[in-house]
Each structure stands twice: as C-alpha cells, then as structure tokens.
C-alpha cells in the first residue's frame, strides 16, 4: 500500500493544505510520497522532505509546470499513478481542477472532499453543502481523492528526512496556456490557515466599510473573509468568500459581522471552534450557530471592538 500526495505550493513555499492531505494519506495505512511539480521549486521539495512520515519526495522541476495547469499536472499524475494505490490532493482550486482528470484517465470514481478515512476503501464526505454526511465505499482498485483542508490535523512540517528524487514531467500538451493572474495581496494570514477570521456580509453596506473589519482584524492578526452576498455586491474580491462554493475554513475564532447566516455560508465556517456573530437582526440564523451573539449595530460595535482589543 502506497499513496502519492500532490503538493500545493507557489514554487517558493509549501502550503499547509499539503500537510493536511499527508495526514489523510497516512490514515490509509501505507507509505506516503509527495509530488512537487513546478518550476524553480527546489525549496518546496526541501520543505516537503521535512514532513514527518513522508517516505520520498518526487520532484518535477520543469518550466512547463510554472503554473499548475490541469492538462500538464494531470498528465504527470497519470504517469506516476501506476506505482500507487491512492493519489490524493488537497481540495483546493488546484486539486479540484486537476484530480478529476486523473480519475477519468484511470477510469475510477473520484472521492471528493473527504472529511474522514474510515478504512482504506471507505470514506466520509459532506453532501448537500454539508447538511448531510455520506459514508462511501470505493470498489475501484486505485483511489483518487481530494481532502478537505479543515478535516484532518496537519502533519508535522519537520522531523522527516525523505529523499528527493527527480522525475521527468510530461511537458505541456499544447492545449492550454497560462495568460496571467490577479492575486490579492495582503499582509494578513491566508483565510484557510488563519487562526482567527473576521468576516463581513451584506450588512457592511459597501467595500469602503470593510475598513471597520480590517481594523479589528489588524488587532487580532486575523484574516478577512466575506459572505457570498458581500462578494456578489462587489464589496470585496472573490477570494474572500467563505462558504459552500468559496473557501471552507475552521479557525479557532470566527467573527461574523453583518452576515445573516445563509446555509451556503454556514457550510463554509460551521466547524470553527468558536463563532461570534454581530448582527442588528436578532432573528438572523447566524445566531443559531454562534457561541457568542451580540445584537448590535455593526457600525458602532466594530469601532468599539477595535478599541477594546
């Protein structure tokens, strides 16, 4: 039994989502190798080799892999899959983009977004935006799996000393090319790994008013998130969105401000350890999941909160 984990990275640093996927892979009970595919990504491979419990790091360092195109990455995974019983990736936008291609090529069903490993062929995964949990058993010889980032502990990032083995890529089949990206620049922690998140909803009224959220976030060294309504209204960029179709988060503390608590949003944050809701509508559904609720006008409460912290 051996599993291969696709590393999530930006050619410079290894993302925490990888550590979560390694934990899920270890739960399958066999050896765990990590694939780092990128360009100029030796530092990432070095970091991956330090992960506790990793047997081997496979490194594809090739200009064709500078950006994680589905067509190029899936070709590498398909090539390597022969040596493994399971191929896993974090359920990030990269993992979700690439893995179904691998599954289709191997003619197996993908098991998306697993939240628990019951046995090497049986898994739990949320369906209906997390309003039900399905336990599924795979009859395929090879498993292709994406792993929910909040569902497993992170494997220790140090303590390992895996060998790094260079392997050839698969080139770019010439079907697609990367044109550009607009990445949100922020000094704050990333949403999916932040310990504290302060999120704003439609109640914020404008993008300008998110400054009130940022002032609180600065005091707590927190990430800033948003509900779908706030993103749809154009207050903040798409990558702020927490929810069923945005990012799934589970920080130590989640502060929801001016968010009513649609099922869609709750699906993305209900596994947070402590939830605080600030909303002027005391009937808002968000209060049903909040550990601490404050019925108040956010335009008064947020400055007070920033002051008090």
């Amino acid at each position: 039994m051996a599993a291969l984990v696709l590393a999530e990275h930006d050619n410079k640093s290894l993302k925490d989502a990888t550590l979560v996927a390694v934990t899920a892979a270890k739960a399958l009970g066999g050896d765990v190798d990590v694939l780092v595919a990128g360009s100029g990504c030796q530092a990432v491979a070095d970091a991956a080799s330090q992960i506790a419990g990793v047997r081997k790091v496979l490194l594809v360092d090739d200009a064709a892999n500078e950006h994680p195109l589905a067509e190029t990455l899936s070709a590498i995974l398909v090539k390597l899959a022969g040596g493994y019983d399971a191929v896993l990736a974090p359920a990030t936008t990269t993992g979700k983009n690439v893995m179904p291609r691998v599954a289709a090529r191997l003619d197996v069903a993908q098991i998306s977004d697993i939240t628990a490993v019951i046995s090497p062929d049986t898994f739990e995964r949320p369906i209906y935006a997390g309003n039900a949990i399905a336990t599924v058993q795979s009859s395929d010889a090879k498993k292709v799996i994406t792993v929910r980032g909040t569902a497993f502990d992170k494997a220790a990032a140090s303590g390992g000393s895996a060998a790094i083995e260079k392997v050839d890529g698969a080139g770019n089949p010439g079907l697609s090319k990367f044109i550009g990206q607009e990445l949100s620049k922020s000094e704050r922690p990333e949403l999916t790994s932040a310990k504290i998140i302060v999120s704003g909803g439609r109640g914020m009224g404008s993008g300008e008013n998110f400054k009130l959220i940022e002032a609180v976030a600065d005091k707590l060294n927190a990430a800033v998130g948003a509900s779908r309504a706030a993103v749809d209204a154009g207050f903040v960029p798409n990558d702020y969105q927490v929810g069923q179709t945005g990012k799934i988060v589970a920080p130590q503390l989640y502060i929801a401000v001016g968010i009513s608590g649609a099922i869609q949003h709750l699906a993305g944050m209900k596994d947070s350890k402590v939830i605080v809701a600030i909303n002027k509508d005391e009937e808002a559904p968000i209060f049903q999941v909040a550990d601490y609720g404050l019925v108040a006008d956010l335009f008064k409460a947020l400055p007070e909160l920033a002051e008090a912290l």
Partner: protein
Amino acid sequence: MKIVVAVKRVVDYNVKIRVKADQTGIELAGIKMSMNPFDEIAVEEALRIKEAGKAKEVIAVSVGPAQAQETIRTALAMGADRGILVKAEGEVEPLGVAKILKGIVEAEQPQLVILGKQAIDNDCNQTGQMLAELLGWPQGTFASKVELGAGEVKVVREVDGGLETVELKLPAVVTSDLRLNEPRYASLPNIMSARKKPIAEKAPADFGVDTAPRLKVLKVSEPAKRQAGVKVANVAELVDKLKNEAKVI
C-alpha cells in the same frame, strides 16, 4: 458552431434537506426539484455567446430520470434550441455522466461544452474536468469570464488566491462559477414556445456506457449540530468572554 450545455435536476437550492430516518439517503418525496444553479449560469453563458453571433445552436443535455425532461424544458425556455435526455434511473456518478457526454459530443461535434462547476446535491465538482480528459480537450474550470475567439477561448478562473486567466485551444470545456453571469428568467411566451422544441431521448447504452456506481453509499447521516450559545449585552462582555471563557484571544 454548436455549444452543448449539461444540466442536472437537483433538489431546489431553497429546500432545507432532511436525512432519511433509515440513513439510506435524503428525503426526496414531494420535494421541489430545479435546475442546478451553476447549470443555469452555464445555459445563460451559452445563450449570450449565441446572441453575440458566435454560435449557431445551443443544445441542452441532461442525464437523469424521466422528470429531467422538465430541467431540459427550463433550458429551452431560457433559449436553448433543442434538448437531449439520456434516461437513467438511480444515481449516475460523474464518471458515468462524463462518458455519456463524451458520446454526445462525438455525435454533435460542438466546439464548446459548458457545465456548472458542481451540482449542489453531491458537491462532487468532477464532471467537466472528467469530460475534458476523456475527450483530450483543455478545460477552463470555475469561470468568471469567458471570451470566445476564433480558434481559442480565454477563461478567467476563480482560484484560491484571486483570479487566473488561461487560454484554451478550441474545442474546450468550460465550467461556470457563481459570478460568470446572472441567468435570465424565462418569459411566459418563451415557456410556451419551448414546449414545441424537440427533445431527443437516449439511453446510456446508446453510447456504450455502463452507469453502475463505483462508490457504494453505506449510509447518509446528519452532521453534528452546533448548539446556539449565549447572547452578550455589549462589546465589553464579548471581549471578556473571548479572553476568559473561550480563551481564544
């Protein structure tokens, strides 16, 4: 050129679902069903491309039970030209749907296939990518903008860090994210005229596809419920609780 759009019949997004007492699935009896919201966005995008004069025909395809015909009718009422219903009872997994769609693509020869990025029932997020791989086509998933050129399509994608733009050689597969467009409502005259539009009926066997599931659902259960906590009177009390009771700040 033709565009194929795949649409799925799912539990309406406004319905609060209930898990069956015997844990075999979700209670579906008497529940309102609708087109998967992401697929509505896919239909809308195909129609806009056609209305811009860049496509001649939009074909709506659904794999599902006889009632999935209603879902296709919705797409026809929005403006799609004709439909194909591939009748299959029981759950067809994304791999099975992708194989059926591949058969349809080979018969219809579209330059573009647009699908929703995921269905809101099983939240798999697989079918578009699987179809692209089976066809040997490129893919632009989680699209928030689609610009069709002569031999290529530019897709702006919603990714974890922000937005990414890729250029795909046609033919290609695109999957829609929430902000690609706002789907139109079908007008009454269009709903009436949609009744006359043709829907062809097929079976998975017509495409040589075995839809037997690869995943066995052992049970479906309720997630752990969160208990509502306490209301605090003011900001000072909130900060005190977070510091001294929850100890998270």
